[in-house]
């Protein structure tokens, strides 16, 4: 375990080194104030971290986490039940598949009109988009569970709730985590968009505001902070998966 953790850290460091080198080269080649070299950008980041970035980072993190939590809490149970209830699935699945490909991001102006310019419209927009991704994945995962797993637990006299607890939920967990990790990228992108359009808080706002002030150093510090938020969120999911699905790492 600790060995794999060490290897992971090493992998991150190596990737970081390559990234910084490529960035340095790109900055040299482009030679524009819009792409500062890493040294100066990181210095700006360090300088701005506590006074300017951290408050906005916290606001952004809150919005993403709240949205993903709400979406998961509704979509995962709903998807699992649909996947295991053929009758309900026959009714709702067509609706889900009609709604899933809709580019929900176009609802942003509607949410802004209805919910104001605070946290609510941003959280709502991210929730809707993540909701459908998670719903479709958990439904498909629940549907794909081999009948023999269910049968053997039912033969022990398990109730429907016990079948969910002992079979359906654990069987679907790895797929749900994959969906969450993919959704985390989408969530941050939607967060950025929604924060740039309205309001005066969050990293998206900070980045666009700095751009307007032609403060490219500030702008880049904001970009780094948002990137770090994405990485932290991804790692959080990774850790949760490691903890909740230990069986997926044996026997291979």
């Amino acid at each position, binding site marked *: 375990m600790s060995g794999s953790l060490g290897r992971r850290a090493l992998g991150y460091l190596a990737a970081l080194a390559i990234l910084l080198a490529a960035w340095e080269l790109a900055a040299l080649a482009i030679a524009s104030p819009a792409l500062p070299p890493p040294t100066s950008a990181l210095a700006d980041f360090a300088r701005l971290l506590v006074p300017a970035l951290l408050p906005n980072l916290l606001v952004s993190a809150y919005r993403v986490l709240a949205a993903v939590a709400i979406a998961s809490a509704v979509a995962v149970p709903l998807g699992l039940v649909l996947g295991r209830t053929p009758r309900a699935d026959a009714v709702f699945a067509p609706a889900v598949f009609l709604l899933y490909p809709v580019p929900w991001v176009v609802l942003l102006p509607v949410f802004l009109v209805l919910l104001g310019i605070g946290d609510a419209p941003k959280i709502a927009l991210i929730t809707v988009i993540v909701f459908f991704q998670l719903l479709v994945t958990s439904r498909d995962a629940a549907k794909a569970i081999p009948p*023999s797993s269910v049968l053997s637990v039912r033969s*022990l006299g*398990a109730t429907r709730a*016990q079948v969910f607890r*002992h079979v359906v939920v654990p069987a679907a967990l790895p797929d749900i985590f994959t969906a969450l990790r993919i959704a985390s990228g989408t969530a941050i992108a939607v967060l950025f968009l929604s924060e740039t359009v309205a309001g005066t808080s969050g990293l998206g706002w900070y980045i666009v505001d700095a751009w307007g002030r032609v403060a490219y150093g500030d702008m880049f510090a904001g970009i780094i902070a948002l990137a770090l938020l994405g990485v932290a969120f991804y790692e959080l999911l990774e850790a949760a998966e490691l903890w909740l699905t230990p069986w997926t790492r044996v026997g291979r």
Partner: protein
Amino acid sequence: MAAVEARDVSVTYEGVDRRVHALGGLTLELADGEPIAIIGPSGCGKSTLLLAIAGLLRADEGSIAVGGEPVTGPRLRTALILQDFGLLPWKTALRNAALGLEVRRVPPAERRQRAAEALSRVGLAEFATAYPAELSGGMRQRLALARAIALEADLLLMDEPLSALDALTREDLQGLLLELWRSRGHTQALVTHSIEEAVFLGRRIVVLTPRPGRVSAVVENPGMGSEGYRDTEAFYERCATLRRLLAAEGAFAEVPR
């Protein structure tokens, strides 16, 4: 008490564009503590019969009773072992063995203890914390048996439990099944495709007809369970009898060896 009484049992599956008549008026009795083997052509309804006895499938006609009680749903002390063993990959060996007890809300301390006992009974004591993916095929089969033992099952239904195993492991587990039956005295129905296995583990061997399945013949096998039975003249004779009966059912194509 777990005598089984199946009377005129018919089961028809309603498929998407066809109906399959799987069992057509099958009658079968098992005395309490009797081990039988069930053999028959592929698709003749053997798995269907076990599911119906386990209470997981309702017969369209006829009746099934276990221990004198009509079967209407899963019964507390019936254990069903399917070909893929029905183990849950996300639970350790100990928790897989304890699953039946957990479902029946036995307190944690007691179920851990009973599951641990069952694991050592099948020789898996050291593997309590292993996941099924870390076990060999034979060990997984042992684990499925441990679950039945932990449940204190008095009726053990097995659907080709050893067919996925290699010949050596299979013989080893046939020995274990015999030993468990001898020491526990439960009623046992074993569905198998192997003639030798049927003769080794069935006090009576029930031969089914092609679909829709009914009992075509019953071979009495009183020597079953005696020391060294596998190497006796009687054993070979029973195997030959069985092979003839199966050939007459047109089942030979499906029966290995």
